[in-house]
């Protein structure tokens, strides 16, 4: 399904129909690499990832210590007065401790009738300051972003972000460099099989830019809470459904909701034996928002990857 949607949205990136996420390599046939990537997922002992199928909102779920989760988040959209695009964020998430998760994101995008870009990376850390489970569980989030203006992954919406930011031609957008720090307060609760999460976002470009603010809210629930006694792939407990809402709240130079973007997006996640497939369709609520944002995600977990690396590098466990 994902390939079909990507093909629908990404043609024609180049005349040959080939595309690449590495700058300077557009036109290179990536099919063999893609096949190797898929084969790796088929062969290595992966587990289904456990986090909720949110695309923007973070919950209190952290990675289990020693596990490495590989996740892709694809955003497909068509800004007004511009061409449709597909942006891919590949996320490597490692559980350093049960209360501390560290992540690396690699971002890229391809715009129809334009070009394909690697748009940068992000490093983030999430820490649970309270060791016990409470009614509301806070998680602190700190991120460093080194991206270009061509980044279209929409992993958060802050300040006065709007569809005009996504409509710039890649040649211009890639010249703008963004060194940003981002801080989030994540509040999350698990009650009666529901997860309800609220994120308060503040972001600062290290250049002479104002602080920008945003929010993300999400709620999800499995369709069935009781596990069945037989292995099954298509039973109700394998599906998690919910919705998220996110948007910008202005910045310190203009702390208003004018020209801000807001989205509401139903989401669904399907737990498969080798990973989690998730899908969302976001609807823009204001004039600055994109009309629709389609998102597709795949997450898979490598169990105890840290111990494996340590044992193969001769370190002590």
């Amino acid at each position: 399904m994902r390939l079909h949607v990507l093909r629908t949205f990404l043609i024609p990136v180049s005349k040959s129909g080939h595309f690449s996420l590495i700058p300077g390599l557009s036109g290179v046939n990536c099919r063999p690499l893609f096949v190797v990537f898929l084969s790796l997922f088929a062969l290595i002992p992966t587990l289904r990832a456990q986090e909720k199928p949110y695309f923007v909102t973070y919950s209190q779920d952290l990675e289990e210590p020693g596990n490495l989760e590989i996740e892709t988040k694809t955003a497909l959209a068509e800004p007004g007065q511009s061409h449709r695009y597909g942006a891919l964020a590949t996320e490597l998430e490692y559980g350093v401790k049960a209360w501390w998760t560290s992540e690396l994101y690699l971002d890229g995008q391809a715009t129809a009738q334009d070009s394909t870009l690697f748009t940068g990376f992000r490093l983030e850390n999430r820490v649970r300051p309270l060791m016990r489970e409470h009614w509301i569980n806070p998680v602190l989030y700190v991120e460093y972003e080194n991206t270009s203006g061509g980044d279209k992954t929409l992993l958060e919406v802050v300040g006065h972000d709007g569809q005009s930011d996504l409509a710039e031609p890649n040649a211009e957008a890639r010249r703008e460099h963004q060194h940003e720090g981002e801080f989030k307060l994540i509040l999350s609760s698990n009650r009666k099989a529901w997860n309800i999460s609220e994120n308060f976002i503040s972001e600062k470009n290290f250049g002479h830019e104002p602080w920008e603010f945003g929010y993300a809210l999400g709620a999800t629930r499995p369709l069935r809470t009781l596990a069945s006694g037989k292995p099954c792939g298509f039973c109700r407990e394998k599906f998690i459904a919910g919705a998220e809402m996110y948007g910008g709240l202005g910045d310190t130079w203009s702390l208003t909701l004018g020209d801000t973007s807001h989205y509401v997006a139903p989401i669904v996640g399907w737990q498969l034996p080798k990973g989690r497939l998730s899908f969302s369709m976001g609807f823009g609520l204001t004039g600055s928002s994109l009309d629709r944002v389609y998102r597709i995600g795949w997450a898979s977990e490598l169990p105890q990857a840290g111990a494996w690396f340590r044992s193969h590098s001769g370190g002590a466990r």
Partner: protein
Amino acid sequence: MRSMPIRRGLGLLCLSIGATLLLCAAASSRWDRVPAKDHARVNPLASRSDSIAAGALVYRSHCEECHKADGMGDGHKKPPLRSDHIKSASDGDLEWFLRQGDLGHGMPSWSSLPEAQRWQVIAYLRSIQ
């Protein structure tokens, strides 16, 4: 010269406080921290015939990577689940511990699992003791 008895006294005081703390820690079990109302809870799914099989599948998905397929742990940081410690716990103790986790010692909180699935895991843990 006068400071020697003071130092010795302080040393003895620290030693006795340390020993008391160690004795207290040894005497108290992890389950002593469980609130009374949680401790008293009984597994509502224990009588269901499919709970053990379902719990085994949940265990395989979430617990096996650390505690191993036989529930014996890794002999290091991941403790065995077939032990007197687990046998002595009430259903409510185990459910509370799964929900809370022990983040400081590497055990994640499993509050994200639906409560029914936590009870199913407990039914499975009881079956392998």
